């Protein structure tokens, strides 16, 4: 049927054969790669079986010269394989960092990594042995890969003398190397590198330099200690709005991380320098860029300065809703010292934006009994059923309903009791009944006996209607409450 003497047919036939051969070539490559991988896996397994106990003894701190000598005899490439899990799995703990640095230095690993970066070329391992060419087995030793591994390891070890090499790596044309160098610089946290990074930030934010990537730079700078913050002063007071924004974001991140470590963090002038405090209160809190104002608010919250309270008050009244939102969210960090701002935060419960209202509810709840009381008072007096719904929702999601019911069952009076009564008569028709259902019989009995002690009034109130969220939360019904319930 097919004329094989036809040139077109011959061409087609040749192409078919080529494609079939190409397919089988791909199959062969796949099988070869698998074979290589199996071989490499076996090599690593044997190496680990043989030397892991030695490494474990060395890392445990039992410094036996024989063990160190055994490791020293290994080719550097094998040592890298042995040490790889320590660098790649998790952050090295602080307590063993000095010892680990000394070990790597003694074994010549740091020198190897530094030489790879300094030359910009692949440095050959200084010793040879049975596994010197292991990289050709599975982890093919491309230049970029080994450079990146070296950068990462120096960063993970926090070997601060190597920071100039990492800064040099930022000029590498390959984004992968720049990226890992930024991360390593952040992990290392060498104070001397911070001003250099700041200058890079200026260049990138102003568009004078396309690399390194802005986000990576920002993340790296945000990883530095609070002690480096004074070096941010030129950026915070810069005339370029982008630089101000990025540097405020870096400052905010450093401060928030520090606050998570120290719950009672207070930023004094000694910590931040008087110039930065002044900038925050006088310039950044009223910056033309609302994003900068929002970020500044999150730092001002931690300032130990009497001028911080009026600045925060103004930020709570900002015309941009997300500035108000971030300020009210940040105020949750204040704990007990937020007393002068309680009323302003309570004012946010009447905000036009629902996210600000919700954030205010959460903030008040996180401010302890005083804040909680402010929230309950607002709930009992507010005619706005949307806000009341939001309050109920947050109370239930936080599991506070259980606590309220228990307090009420134990005979507690005051705002908590009035709150429970309002919730019971319809403000939280679902949540409260669910809580009652899960209570122990004794607590439930105590609750019901107290609640129905004034049964006649309640029956009158419920007469002819079954409460639901919408109807019971309207202002009219709040006024209809029995006198002892209508606060």
């Amino acid at each position, binding site marked *: 049927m097919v*004329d094989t003497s036809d040139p077109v047919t011959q061409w087609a036939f040749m192409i078919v054969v080529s494609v079939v051969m190409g397919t089988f070539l791909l199959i062969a490559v796949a099988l070869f790669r698998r074979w290589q991988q199996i071989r490499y896996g076996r090599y690593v397994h044997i190496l680990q079986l043989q030397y892991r106990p030695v490494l474990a003894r060395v890392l445990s701190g039992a410094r036996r010269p024989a063990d160190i000598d055994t490791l020293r005899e290994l080719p550097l490439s094998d040592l890298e394989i042995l040490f790889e899990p320590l660098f*790649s799995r998790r952050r090295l703990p602080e307590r063993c960092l000095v010892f680990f640095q000394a070990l790597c230095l003694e074994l010549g690993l740091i020198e190897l990594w530094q030489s790879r970066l300094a030359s910009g070329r692949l440095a050959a391992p200084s010793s040879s042995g049975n596994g010197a060419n292991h990289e050709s087995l599975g982890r093919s030793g491309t230049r970029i890969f080994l450079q990146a591994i070296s950068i990462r390891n120096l960063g993970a070890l926090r070997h601060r003398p190597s920071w100039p090499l990492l800064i040099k790596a930022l000029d590498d044309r390959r984004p992968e190397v720049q990226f890992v160098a930024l991360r390593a610089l952040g992990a290392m946290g060498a104070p001397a590198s911070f001003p250099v990074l700041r200058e890079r930030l200026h260049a990138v934010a102003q568009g004078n330099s396309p690399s390194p990537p802005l986000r990576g730079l920002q993340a790296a700078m945000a990883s530095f200690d609070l002690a480096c913050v004074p070096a941010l002063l030129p950026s915070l007071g810069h005339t370029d709005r982008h630089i101000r924004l990025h540097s405020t974001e870096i400052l905010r991140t450093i401060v928030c991380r520090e606050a998570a470590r120290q719950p009672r963090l207070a930023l004094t002038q000694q910590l931040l320098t008087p110039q930065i405090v002044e900038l925050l209160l006088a310039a950044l809190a009223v910056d033309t860029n609302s994003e900068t104002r929002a970020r500044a608010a999150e730092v001002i919250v931690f300032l130990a300065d009497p001028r911080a309270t009026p600045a925060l008050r103004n930020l709570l009244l900002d015309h941009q809703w997300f500035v108000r939102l971030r300020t009210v969210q940040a105020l949750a960090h204040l704990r007990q010292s937020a007393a002068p701002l309680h009323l302003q935060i309570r004012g946010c419960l009447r905000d036009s934006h629902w996210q600000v209202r919700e954030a205010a509810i959460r903030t008040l709840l996180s401010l302890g009994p005083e804040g909680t009381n402010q929230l309950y008072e607002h709930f009992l007096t507010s005619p706005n059923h949307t806000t009341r719904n939001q309050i109920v929702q947050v109370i239930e999601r936080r599991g506070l309903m259980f606590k309220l019911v228990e307090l009420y069952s134990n005979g507690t009076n005051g705002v908590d009791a009035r709150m429970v009564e309002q919730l019971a008569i319809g403000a939280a028709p679902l949540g409260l009944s669910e809580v009652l259902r899960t209570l122990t019989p004794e607590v439930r009995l105590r609750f019901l006996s107290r609640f129905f002690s004034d049964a006649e009034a309640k029956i009158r109130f419920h007469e002819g209607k079954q409460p639901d969220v919408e109807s019971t939360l309207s202002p009219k019904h709040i006024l209809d409450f029995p006198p002892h319930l209508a606060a």
Partner: protein
Amino acid sequence: MSHIHTFFDDWVTVFNLVVLSYFFLGNGIYTILMLLSLRATWVHQRQMAYQGLEALRHSPLTPPVTIIIPAWNEQDVIVNCVRTALQADYPHLQVIVVDDGSTDRTLDRLVKSFGLVEMDGAYHPSIPSAPVRTYYINPTVPSLLVVSKVRGGKSDALNAGINLCRSPYFCNIDADCLLERDSLLRLMDPVVNSAVQTVVSGGIIRILNGCETRGGRLLKVGLPRTWLERFQVVEYLRCFLSGRTGWHLLGGTLIVSGAFAVFHRATVIEAGGFSHDTVTEDMDLIVELCQWAADNHRKIRTSFTSDPVCWTECPSTLAVLANQRRRWQLGLCQTLWKHSGILFRSRYGIVGMLSFPFHSYVEGMGAVVEFLGYVLVPAFIYLGMIPSRLLLVFILLGFVYGGFLSVGAVLLEELTYRRYPRLKDLVTLLIFALFENLGYRQLVLYYRFQGVLKFLAGSRRWEKVAHVGATAEELP
């Protein structure tokens, strides 16, 4: 009479050209995509080897994410899916399950398994959705919120989830999916490290059938037992590792699986949320976002990464496979038709000039062209209406080259992620890749052709894909 004969001859010639151009274009572009993917996946995998995820996990710049799980009659799989979502390794995570008016025990199982209690909720819809009826929480599992709403379809359930979500990003996963522990971190990596705002980040879907799971965790990766499922494993590898990675590199991502993707919440809300117009709301949203961004002069980025893995069940019977493929093709045609305005419009960049036309011709119309090609070309050759040498070209393009591409995808997997650890699995995959184009592709093509017919008939019916229980648990 001779006029009719001439007309018929012309028609046959044109038809042959269309069929051949379809195969040349499709195979050519897929080869380019495969080569691009090979390099990109290799580089990405190396990057992950030395970067790791530790920095991202502890970075203060890693934004919170909410996982939204829409569920409709998913009683067999929902509990494991929620467990896997709650176990995800991510610093700030919330999980919202939207029960879209299930008529089975989906909600009941959730309430019992997670000790949920009803609560009073406040709903602030930013995008329209059917009303939410009930909220369920367990204060001891604060990161989980379950809501029950009036049935409105998957896109409506997702919209309700977006309304309840408080984080800047949300990730939607299907109820029959299992996430790998670090997949969300991997999915967020391009979002956090991108200079341009990334509004969509998609990951790879792999097939769960044949794997060993327990309590929402994947214990052992393996190949499924039946030929139908094994062909789908190869097909998924080709589609995700070659196709989508390649399109991502070209900047023409048009499809990100709705079973596992992260979206920027505010941008999705601005673009109007998930639409009810099509049965593939995921693709529709991506195209909508591209269109919206270009129209509003916004610089956004869509990303696809091939190492965040979500494991999902694939159909194990022909009937279920037919349902699934008809729906996918129907949704594709609906989306292409709905957004046909961006076709060959330079303002939409690569999407408008290359990706959308390619999907329209090769993926959309291609189902008809290829189906008719398989039926008519052999018939024409048999009747002597076209030269017999075309048969060789047709065999080359239709069968042999497809095998080359499928084997290439398996090789890509082997060079990079190597998820199937046993040598036996690799050999099986290679054999199935070799023969994927001899029968299976034609079968799927037939279902896709039916999907096109459904589109032409104006159907909008969602065909539910039944789960056989790879992620399922025994009902109490």
